[in-house]
């Protein structure tokens, strides 16, 4: 074992040489089987090709234990069916597989690509096993196996023939690791094997998967396949992929044709490659062809850039509205407890937090129904936070009306209490609230513009909550009474309004809305004991900026602060942006001491 350990470096060298050999073999095969008349692309594909022809020999002499190197005709691939093709000539399948054991990631990627181009009977299975992390290498000699875990042992299979190869302890093996990039390459390689599937849909899917990880092997495979392809959609997809590939590796004419073919395509992949072309060709190139090419690419890039700028502004606006909608959600409950009732409710943040935890609990109660749980969490959070709010009002706040500054002290105590309560019940760790399907991912409008689903949903949700609240305040008798009490408590009581009960209900309403905000926030941020703390200051700012006691003010102030922040942020960075917004707020209050929409009347003066 020790002997092999010490030869690690040697084996690594062999692996590299094998890979170089593959490159050579591929080039050779290309030259033979090329039907599209595009030889330069093959040359460009493997820069090492020129230097390879001689290297296999020394490699072979240095590698008795591992495998014969590339170029060895009677390779150890024993039972492989020979009908797969002329291009398998000169390709050392077994040696290539064996090299996986010691390869690094770039080498592994090349190996995978080469295997897909020279498939044998079990290549698809091998690739599937590799993608599932079921390939292992024996520690003692680096030999590669396909393994199935069985207790503390592995059931082994030969990676070439897939014959069982015994059983051994897992401790004797190292995994042949994959990373996400490699798994994508494997996916593309698997797709390549499916190119000849019966079903046109499968072929189309295969071409699309391959397009995502285009390398020259994949392009060659597509090019080879193109001749026999009959389906128009697949042909279209292949042509697009080949054109994109040409942007990198074609000759000047091919590149120009590709630019022509792809004009109007704004996708990232095209843009990236065009941009790269601009980097590679110097601006003052003397070569007329190159200059022409550069101009064509520049024109496309310019066009895409222009659209990008337009969409960037749209996107920033959306980001601002989305941030604003969260500020509105967080602040709107406070606009009632603080704005309408005059309670400096420092526990507001904790009521939001309770709502977020309600979402978590609902998801625990309804495992498997993420979306349903979240929808049900909205009324549940309203009830939970609302009841806690009523409890706070009945037990503490009701004794303090008319002494707003003392409500600050008492509710500060309540907030400490609630935070610790959550810590005791749910531990101090963050809880995970999952996002349902319809709230994850992007809603794509075109190649350049997409909005995140969750932000859109929350923006709409925020507006809905606001609308509902306005309706309650304007159209229901509860709302009428609340407004009456906030304008003149004594008069309202004289008119027969049970102010005590109403206070409790109003406070409960504000708290309940805070709880609803918590459900929305659970989709964006940490659900933990500190959730409330991070929103309390912003909430107060929003309410004060909008004008205490005015719900519309809260809406306008939240949205405008959000948009303002997002338009400053790209210039100054997030920290300075926040400072600037705060200073703006201070100065604004100096100009308009009662916010955007000051409440008029006698009581407004009393605070």
């Amino acid at each position: 074992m020790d002997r092999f350990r010490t030869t690690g470096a040697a084996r690594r060298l062999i692996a590299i040489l094998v890979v170089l050999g593959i490159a050579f073999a591929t080039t050779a095969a290309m030259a033979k089987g090329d039907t599209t008349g595009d030889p330069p692309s093959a040359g460009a594909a493997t820069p090492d090709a020129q230097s390879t022809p001689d290297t296999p020999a020394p490699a072979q002499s240095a590698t008795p234990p591992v495998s014969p190197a590339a170029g060895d005709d009677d390779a150890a691939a024993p039972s492989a069916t020979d009908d797969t093709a002329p291009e398998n000539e000169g390709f050392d399948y077994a040696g290539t597989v064996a090299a996986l054991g010691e390869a690094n990631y770039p080498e592994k990627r090349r190996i995978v690509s080469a295997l897909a181009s020279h498939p044998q009977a079990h290549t698809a299975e091998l690739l599937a096993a590799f993608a599932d992390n079921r390939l292992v290498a024996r520690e003692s000699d680096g030999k590669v196996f396909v393994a199935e875990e069985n207790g503390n042992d592995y059931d082994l299979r030969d990676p070439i023939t897939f014959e069982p190869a015994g059983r051994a302890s897992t401790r004797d093996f190292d995994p042949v690791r994959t990373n996400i990039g490699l798994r994508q390459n494997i996916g593309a390689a698997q797709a390549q094997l499916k190119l000849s599937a019966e079903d046109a849909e499968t072929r189309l899917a295969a071409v699309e998967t391959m397009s995502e990880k285009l390398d020259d092997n994949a392009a060659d495979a597509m090019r080879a396949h193109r001749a026999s392809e009959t389906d128009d959609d697949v042909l279209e997809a292949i042509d697009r992929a080949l054109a994109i590939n040409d942007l990198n590796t074609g000759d000047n004419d091919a590149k120009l044709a590709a630019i022509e073919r792809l004009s109007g395509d704004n996708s990232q992949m095209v843009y990236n490659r065009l941009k790269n072309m601009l980097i590679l060709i110097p601006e003052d190139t003397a070569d007329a062809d190159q200059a022409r090419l550069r101009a064509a690419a520049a024109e496309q890039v310019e066009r895409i850039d222009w659209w990008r700028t337009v969409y960037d502004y749209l996107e920033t606006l959306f980001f601002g509205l989305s941030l604003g909608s969260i500020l509105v959600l967080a602040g709107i409950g406070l606009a009632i407890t603080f704005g309408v009732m005059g309670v400096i409710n420092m526990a507001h943040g904790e009521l939001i937090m309770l709502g977020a935890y309600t979402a978590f609990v609902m998801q625990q109660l309804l495992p498997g129904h993420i979306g349903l749980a979240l929808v049900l969490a909205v009324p549940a959070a309203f009830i939970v936070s609302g009841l806690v709010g009523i409890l706070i009002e009945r037990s503490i706040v009701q004794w303090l009306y008319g002494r707003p500054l003392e409500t600050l002290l008492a509710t500060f105590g309540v907030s400490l209490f609630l935070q610790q309560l959550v810590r005791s019940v749910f531990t101090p760790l963050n809880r995970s609230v999952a996002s349902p399907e319809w709230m994850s991912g992007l809603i794509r409008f075109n190649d350049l513009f997409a909005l995140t689903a969750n932000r859109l949903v929350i923006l709409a949700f925020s507006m809905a909550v606001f609308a509902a609240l306005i309706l309650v305040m304007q159209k229901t008798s509860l709302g009428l009474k609340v407004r009456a009490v906030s304008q003149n408590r004594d008069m309202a009581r004289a008119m027969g309004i049970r102010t005590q009960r109403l206070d409790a209900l109003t406070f409960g309403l504000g708290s309940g809305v805070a709880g609803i905000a918590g459900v929305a926030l659970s989709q964006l941020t940490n659900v933990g004991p500190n959730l409330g703390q991070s929103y309390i200051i912003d909430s107060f700012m929003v309410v004060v900026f909008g004008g205490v006691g005015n719900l519309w003010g809260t809406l306008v102030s939240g949205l405008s602060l959000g948009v303002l922040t997002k338009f400053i942020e790209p210039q100054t960075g997030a920290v300075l942006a926040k400072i600037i917004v705060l200073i703006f707020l201070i100065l604004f209050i100096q100009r308009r001491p009662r916010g955007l929409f000051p409440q008029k009347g006698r009581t407004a003066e009393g605070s």
Partner: protein
Amino acid sequence: MTRTHANHGPVLTRMLGDTGSLIFVVVLIALTVAIPLCNLVAEPGSALHVSNFTVALIGKYLTYALLAVALDLIWGYCGILSLGHTAFFGLGGYAMGMYLMRQIGDRGVYGNPVLPDFMVFLNWDTLPWYWHGMDIFAVAMAMVVFVPGLLALVFGWLAFRSRVTGVYFAIITQAMTYALMLAFFRNEMGFGGNNGLTDFKDILGYSLSSDGTRVALFVASGVGLLIGFLIARFIVTSRAGRVLEAIRDAESRTRFTGYRVELYKVWIFTISAMLAGVAGALYVPQVGIINPSEFSPIASIEAVVWVAVGGRGTLYGAALGAGVVNFAKTWLTGAFPEIWPYALGALFVAVTLFLPKGIVGLVSQLRRQIRRKEPS
């Protein structure tokens, strides 16, 4: 809360005419003298001995008490609720911290004679302009009162001139301290970012870790609190103090009577900020670090809570509140690390509900009850 003050007679009788204040001053002087003696003279192990730990702890409480007095001066006597007073406390602390930082000289880990360590490792090659002169004690001490004072002056002038009052004022002071916190977090500001200023070695040539220096700082804090308290008492018992109380109780009416309300407010706010700055400056060498978390909005709210717990509008009540709440925190976080926030939260609620005038109010209430019983 209105109280008639003896407005004539010698200043001292006027200031200490109130029993509570007199008791407070006597107790404070006794503490300032006795604790150092008990620490330095009494043998360790004897009943009278006060440990270094206790000295440092009480020294810290004294600086908090001074902050509370400053806060009570504006809140209790002028009705200005500042939820950003730790901003001034922090600025004073940073001024002191800068002085202490410069005293390190070339004893920092990188051995740079001029630049503090954090600047060296951020590759700064020159000292920012505002750090110049801070190695001179007198300059630094001037900054301790000047910087908070200036900020309060500008901020107060802007706010009071346009009649920002009540909760609006409270919320924009929160915005102010929050903005300062974020700004000081930024490394570009040149104040050590999140880590702040730390690793101090000595003050006026005396090592900060020696017992003597610690006791001296303790005495300085005691004296600082005493002077701060007397200044505050002097103001509230003067004619101006009565105008302040009038503003607190009926601002519009006072204005219509012909007083320039905003001038009174700006001026008391500025003095209060300077006192807070001094408190910060005394605090820093005793805890050994100053960083932006001192500016956190929650810290400011906590300071208001101290005043409320002790009893608003008495000055000594505020100092007492700072001591009680912080002692409770020290004790509870050690004794009940897992559940102490319940106790502290409950304390705040209980005080608001049952002791609307704070601990001091409880005492006078008890006294009144006793007095009422006596005649019957």
